[in-house]
């Protein structure tokens, strides 16, 4: 059988859900970030799948942009985490709760 579009979309959805669950459940900041990357990659898979099946190159363009943003965001995010870690000696996201309004 040829791989169907829906399979790719389903896989992407599953990956995305796993990522979302991980973001909410995980207490370790690094793990949260990895899950965020997983979410972004799941979306990338969706775009590529659509681009391939509809023979439209726009999807692949989007992937470029998403990858760029992901890289930039990972760099800045890791920088923040390291700063917080230096201050608090802990990677537990629950403890970083002093930003209350």
């Amino acid at each position, binding site marked *: 059988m040829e791989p169907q579009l829906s399979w790719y979309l389903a896989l992407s959805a599953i990956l995305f859900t796993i990522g*979302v669950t991980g*973001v*909410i*459940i995980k*207490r370790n900041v690094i793990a949260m970030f990895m899950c965020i990357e997983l979410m972004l990659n799941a979306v990338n898979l969706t775009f590529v799948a659509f681009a391939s099946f509809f023979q439209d190159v726009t999807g692949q363009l989007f992937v470029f942009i998403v990858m760029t943003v992901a890289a930039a965001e990972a760099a800045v995010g890791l920088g923040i985490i390291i700063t917080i870690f230096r201050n608090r000696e802990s990677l537990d*996201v*629950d403890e*970083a*709760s*002093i*930003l*209350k*309004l």
Partner: protein
Amino acid sequence: MENNLLSLIIFAPLAGAAVNWLIGRRVRDERFIGAVACGSVAISALVAFYLAFKSGGALRSETPVLDHIWTWLQVGAFRADFALAMDRLSGTYALFITFVGFLIHLFAVGYMHGEAGFYRFFAFLNLFMFSMLTLVLGDNFILMFVGWEGVGLCSYLLIGYYFDKKEAGDAAKKAFITNRIGDWGFVLGIMLTFFVTGSVSFFANPAAGEVTHTALSFFKNAQVEPFTAGAILAGGATSIAVLLFIGAAGKSAQIPLYVWLPDAMAGPTPVSALIHAATMVTAGVYMIVRCSEIFGHAPTAMFIVAIIGAATALFAATIGLAQNDIKKVLAYSTISQLGYMFLACGVGAFVAAIFHVITHAFFKALLFLGSGSVIHGMHHEQDMRRMGGLRKYMPITFATMITGWLAISGVPIFAGFFSKDEILWRTWSAPAFSLPSTGFSKLLWAIGALTALLTAVYMTRMMVMTFWGEERFRESHESKHPEPDHHGPVEPHESPWVMTLPLIVLAVLSTVGGFIGVPYALSSVFADRDVNVIEHTLEPVVATVPPGTHGESLVDQHPELAFEPTHVAHSREEISAERLLAGISVLIGLAGIGLGWVIFQKRPLLAMPRVLENKYYVDEIYDAALIRPIEGGSREGLWKILDIGVIDGFLHGIGEVVTEAGRLARYLQAGFVRAYAAIILVGALILIGLFAWKGFPSP
């Protein structure tokens, strides 16, 4: 006809109450308070006598004296005004209420000397006079009910006068609550009366724009209801009468609502004399006689009244035989005598009932005040087992109580003989209108005669234990029941003039008061004139019971008699029968006195059967069968489940919902990053869901 002086009768005591409450409390001078209290009642009495006996006055004319004070309730067809009406019936009542009331007020000035709450007592006593006079002078059911509730309130306030004693507070609550049960019936009766007749008034006063047809006139030409049990629920005159009687049974202490009256003796003795002997308890009788037109058309109801009256009379007399507290004997005696009055109403002898109300007011007030004098002289000792031989120390009290004793025992010429004998004669000769058979009237007579015998016996016992024999109060107290409020042996003394003067006046009235009602059968022995003053005075205002059998109206048989009051016939056989019965009554009275003397003179402390002393355990039965279940149901069911569970639970639930919502909303601002992530997820899902449902916007 209108006379604005009538309102002075009720407003003078009300003003006295207000003055004593507001000013008497500051001034705290017993002479001032006593003068205001007695003076206001004296004003009422003078006005009542004036309005009754002046030419065209209430007792001399057929039309009532009216006073329309203000228009009170007027809703569609329903109209009840604050208006007074003094006709022959309410005039008679007003006369003895104010006069005996005045004497009791005077007595109380002496009895309550030294009390801290002197002003409070007289304020409430005057308030009571206001309520009682409103009750009898009101021209419609609603105003009568206002007075009815007012006397109940004052009874509660005065029974509970010694508020630091738990038994007084309990007795006051018991009186009020038991009364309320009767009031349920009374109010339903008033409602049904309005529903059936379209009016709640007793008198028509077209001049003042009031209703022109009254509740009573509706029944004048109505059909007499059948003598069946079904008539009780039929919604006509019988239903109304039964409901009204429930109210009367509560106020006038008949079976099954009599239990409050003996406990009410916890109040000061003048209260017992005024409220629970002479006036308030006779309000039920007044109400029935006022509505005699309704009762006269409801033979089933009259039967119930007669039975309960006779049963109560006998029942209470047996209990009175075994009581050791002097006031409790008199309390049960009052219940028993009230039974006589209801028996009279039940057989259609309304005038005889009122006659007994009047003579009973005289001799019962005398007996109560006399016992108050004894209690006062014995430094508040009430147990007759610790009295004895007091006739040497309290001669005036002794002499006056003798007249009361002879009067209640039915010894001629004293007042009680004429009224009790009239009731017994009318019971014996009662027509089969309200009874299953004429034989039944003989049974009722027998119950009444037995009660009369017992009355004489227990009253003799009371007198012997108190005034004759050895002086048991001299024995040392520590050997018997040590009383905390006695200091050493009591030395009895006679009471001051403010207390003995009313006793003397009442003694005179108990002696000669019966002469207003000498029946023709007896007066004809001396002269062929009918001098039955009370019969002539009251006859026009009470209904006459047809002598036919169950529901057959004499009017149907003899239409020419339709407008003739059928009074007791003066035929040969009737007169000799009446004289014979009168002779039997005298013998019963004397036999009772003799029996009591013989038994108790030698052994005053003879113990009576336990079951009688414990009042047939009725209070305990009520407690177990009614009060405990209601209390339990209230506490477990209504309080714990409904009040705390449902109502409080609902309120607490609202609070908890708010708290929970707050607790959840807190996550918006708790700095909790994972919560923020979750909220973003939830928001995104909601948006997608919305779009999925509503449809994506087309490009």
